[in-house]
């Protein structure tokens, strides 16, 4: 993990943005207009909440960033990749620049906590010595250094999600994206999860997180993007939420 501590408020905006949407629309093959003319710019080191009612297009927004879905119109740039022009073969390279945290944790039940995190390094071909070091670091960073040998089903929901964050973190990504990472975790655990993401953000990683939890958004005073029926209806850089 990078050691330079960067305050979000001091980030220069003339730098190339980590995420840039220009006139992006997404229509699914069944005809649903999930996003319409979305323009957004997210800079390095920002922490951004994405909020909105169910079906507003939040997950679609995230999937476009991961290139799980392709935009119908407009241009998307993420971590220097032009997603609208990118070929399929390049998708893995894009994914290596980001860490993804899942709502349902996605831990492999038959692997230990350590192996679950190591898996993310193995499959991108990291050498085993580096794997051992980085996994240990990542687990320490999420406060699970002592649970390395545990199996996922021996952990609480909050702990499991912290393993998920360690896994997203371990390849040292420039961007972490999390679609409702606290969705399957009870409220007081949610706070810990977001704190963890916030402290990772403090070390320079851009974090983008979808949530339904207004309480969290209020507490963590960060930039909030609000979607409604596929459109950005509010982009509150000052933090807090308007309703």
């Amino acid at each position, binding site marked *: 993990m990078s050691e330079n501590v960067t305050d979000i408020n001091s980030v220069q905006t003339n730098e190339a943005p980590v995420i840039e949407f220009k006139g992006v629309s997404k229509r699914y093959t069944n005809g649903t207009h999930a996003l319409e003319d979305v323009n957004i710019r997210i800079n390095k080191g920002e922490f951004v909440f994405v909020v909105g009612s169910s079906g507003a297009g939040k997950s679609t927004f995230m999937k476009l960033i991961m290139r799980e879905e392709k935009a119908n119109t407009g241009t998307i740039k993420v971590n220097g990749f032009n997603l609208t022009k990118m070929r399929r073969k390049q*998708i*893995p*390279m894009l994914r*290596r620049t980001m860490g993804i945290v899942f709502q349902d944790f996605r831990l492999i039940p038959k692997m230990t906590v350590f192996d679950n995190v190591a*898996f993310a390094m193995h*499959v991108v*071909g990291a050498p085993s010595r580096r794997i051992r070091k980085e996994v240990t670091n990542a687990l320490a960073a999420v406060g699970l250094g002592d649970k390395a040998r545990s199996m996922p089903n021996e952990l609480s929901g909050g702990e499991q999600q912290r393993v998920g964050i360690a896994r997203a973190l371990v390849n040292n990504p420039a961007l972490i994206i999390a679609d409702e990472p606290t969705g399957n975790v009870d409220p007081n655990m949610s706070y810990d999860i977001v704190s963890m993401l916030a402290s990772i953000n403090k070390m320079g990683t851009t974090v983008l997180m979808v949530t339904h939890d207004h309480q969290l958004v209020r507490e963590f005073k960060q930039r909030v993007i609000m979607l409604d029926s596929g459109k950005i209806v509010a982009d509150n850089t000052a933090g807090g939420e308007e309703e």
Partner: protein
Amino acid sequence: MKLGDVRYLTKEGIKSTWANRLMTLASIGVLVACMVVIGLAVLISENGNKALGHLEKQNIVMAYMKDYSWALDMKTNADTADKTASEQTAASKSGNSSEKGDGAQDGAAAETPDENGIKNSDYVIHSDEEAKKLCKQIRKIDNVKNVEFISSEEGLKNVAEQLGKDESNKKLVMELLKDDNPLPRSAKITMTSMDEFDSTVKAIEELEGISNVRSQGDAAKKILSIKNGVQIAGIWMISILLLISLVIVSNTIRITMYNRKLEISIMKAVGATNSFVRLPFIVEGITIGLISAVISEGLLYFCYRVVTDELENVLGGAVIPFSHMALILLGIFAAIGTVSGVIGSSIMISKYLRKEGSEFAAI
């Protein structure tokens, strides 16, 4: 891809084969069944070829000689076709032979053309004596077992024989052609080994005095058509079995992929390349194929022993021993196993790898 990756993925592939062992076992069972049937087909067809080879050995070729009737035939053909060409051939032929014939038909004066325009030097075999000498020469060729001289008259009789059972027909042919026999002298040749058939025919054809060699036809043709039929049926059967193997392996891989969709979705999310995701499944496919190959080889050995023990009593030791075929069969099986492993897994993988991330976890 690095060596460490390959090791890791191979391990993963084998682990998954084991984790999926019930399905693996089932597909190995089907593959083994297919391979044993294919192996038996190969063994039967090889034995069949060998047996048919015996039959073919009794086959006989006819070598026709360049005698007076041949020259006459040539001249008639050439005259109607191209005059200048025939003159050239005649010119090049003159000086070839200085032998003098004394046969009834061949008795024309040395260099003066007879009433048909044929000179002595236009043909090689002037008498039955020369023909018999040529037969002795044929006999000296490797692989020639027996040579029987057939004079023009005998040849005519044979033709008449073939024309029908009707005695009057035969008589008619004999009467019509007796004085103007168009058949050249010939030799009926029996070969020792069918394997050298082509080279032997060539050696005979190269002899001075032989115009052409014809195999006796019918029997050989029939055997050949049976062989072709068996071969085509075999190819069809093997193709179908190969298709079954492919379907079985790809289905097994499909189930493995389904079982491992969580891993795959994570792999894709963290940026594993498709070829990296694919390799364990290909390893699994190949593992299934190769295990099947080894089992099939063993099983076939026992099957074949039982069958040949019976057959040998009937045929009397003419059966090909398994050891002669063992390596070829193992090679065939390994090839089938590898190919169906690679292709079978690739079919499913490419179908699934088009899906991305969470979409994958949702299948």
